[in-house]
């Protein structure tokens, strides 16, 4: 992990190499992200100061995360609310020795789950989230259609998670049962060339008052099945979303003009829980092996049984708690 002084000096030197003489300070490092380093910086070019957000890859995310994110921000600019990209460098030939990007901050707050919001805000913002998602799925994916390499996480791909989970064998029996079920019910590949966000959920949405002001964290963007995004949007990463998912699915159908196959959506919900279980196991693995001292990764041990209980409840057709 870099320190704030080094981050500020790195950006100052990089800008200087492009003929932009600037004073840069790094005020704080964001806490929440587990996959990338996020720094709040202030850049003074003499013509005025501006606040900005600088993102660097971590060992876990790899440089691909930054490259995908900068490409995605370019693709969606002006079509859905997202941070404006100020500067980026996709090569490791820079003071950070890794790809990085700098984007405009979006004022507002980022609740970690839908359950944090009061009921009125939750209903209103969930509808907006669906509208933004439907618009997002209608954007031409451009370079993201062909830009996915084999190393990056593919959020709608059962095989990707199955292969990664193989590293953590023996896996919990409930998780093994879920993989068995997913294989039995694997849907036909999605038609078309649809842009998906890959991590579209509360926790990656900037809320300001009663409006969604920005969608963050585009590092898993690519082409895939839009129902993977729809299922993931309200998956309880921490606590149940407490939204009327049936009504929101109907709204998505209306806004996108595409019918939602209910069985396919459930398949992606189960895959979503498998994904959460994978995150818990991989975080725990990283902590146990000494690759990270982040106690939040160790605490994911406690969320794994919760994910698997909700997974099994969903399969059984029971409400989740």
């Amino acid at each position: 992990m870099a320190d704030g002084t080094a981050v500020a000096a790195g950006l100052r030197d990089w800008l200087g190499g492009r003929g932009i003489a600037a004073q840069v300070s790094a005020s704080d490092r964001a806490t929440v992200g587990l996959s990338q380093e996020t720094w709040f910086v202030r850049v003074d070019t003499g013509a005025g100061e501006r606040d900005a957000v600088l993102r660097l890859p971590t060992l876990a995310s790899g440089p691909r995360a930054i490259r995908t994110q900068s490409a995605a921000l370019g693709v969606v600019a002006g079509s859905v609310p997202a941070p404006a990209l100020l500067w980026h460098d996709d090569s490791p030939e820079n003071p950070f020795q890794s790809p990085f990007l700098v984007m405009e901050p979006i004022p507002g707050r980022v609740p970690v789950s839908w359950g944090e919001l009061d009921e009125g805000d939750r209903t209103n913002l969930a509808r907006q989230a669906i509208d933004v998602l439907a618009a997002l799925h209608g954007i031409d994916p451009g370079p993201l259609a062909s830009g996915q390499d084999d190393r990056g996480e593919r959020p709608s791909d059962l095989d990707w998670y199955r292969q990664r989970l193989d590293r953590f064998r023996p896996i919990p029996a409930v998780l093994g049962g879920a993989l068995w079920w997913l294989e039995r019910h694997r849907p036909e590949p999605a038609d078309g060339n649809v842009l998906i966000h890959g991590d579209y959920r509360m926790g990656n949405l900037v809320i300001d008052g009663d409006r969604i002001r920005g969608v963050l964290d585009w590092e898993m963007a690519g082409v895939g099945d839009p129902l993977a995004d729809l299922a993931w949007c309200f998956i309880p990463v921490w606590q149940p979303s407490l939204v009327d998912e049936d009504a929101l699915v109907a709204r998505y159908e209306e806004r996108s003009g595409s019918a939602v196959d209910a069985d396919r959506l459930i398949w992606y919900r189960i895959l979503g829980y498998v994904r959460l279980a994978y995150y818990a196991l991989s975080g725990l693995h990283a902590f146990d092996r000494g690759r990270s001292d982040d106690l939040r990764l160790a605490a994911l041990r406690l969320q794994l049984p919760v994910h698997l209980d909700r997974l099994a409840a969903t399969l059984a057709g029971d409400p989740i708690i």
Partner: protein
Amino acid sequence: MSDEPLDLLGHPGPASPPVSHDRLAGAVAELSRRVGQPELRAQLNALGALLSNLESHVASQEARVPLEAAISRAVEEDDEQGVIAAMRRLAAVDRAVLAAVDWSAVTGG
């Protein structure tokens, strides 16, 4: 006060009394509330959650093993409803032993 002599030798205890994990978790949670630095606060909340679950976060093998076997057996028999029913019961057993965690504190900051 009684005049009876105190019998402090009849019931020997451990070399040092154990500290309650729940008390440790509570103290760490209280400490986190006094910490201003967001990242440190989130780390302390995670530590508190781990401490509060040190003793209880694994269900007994007596409860788990038959359910794991039931999942394997149902898979071999291609009995999808049997797999789901056994998964449901095993997942409930594993979750029931967990102490609740305030994830908004652990993940926020």
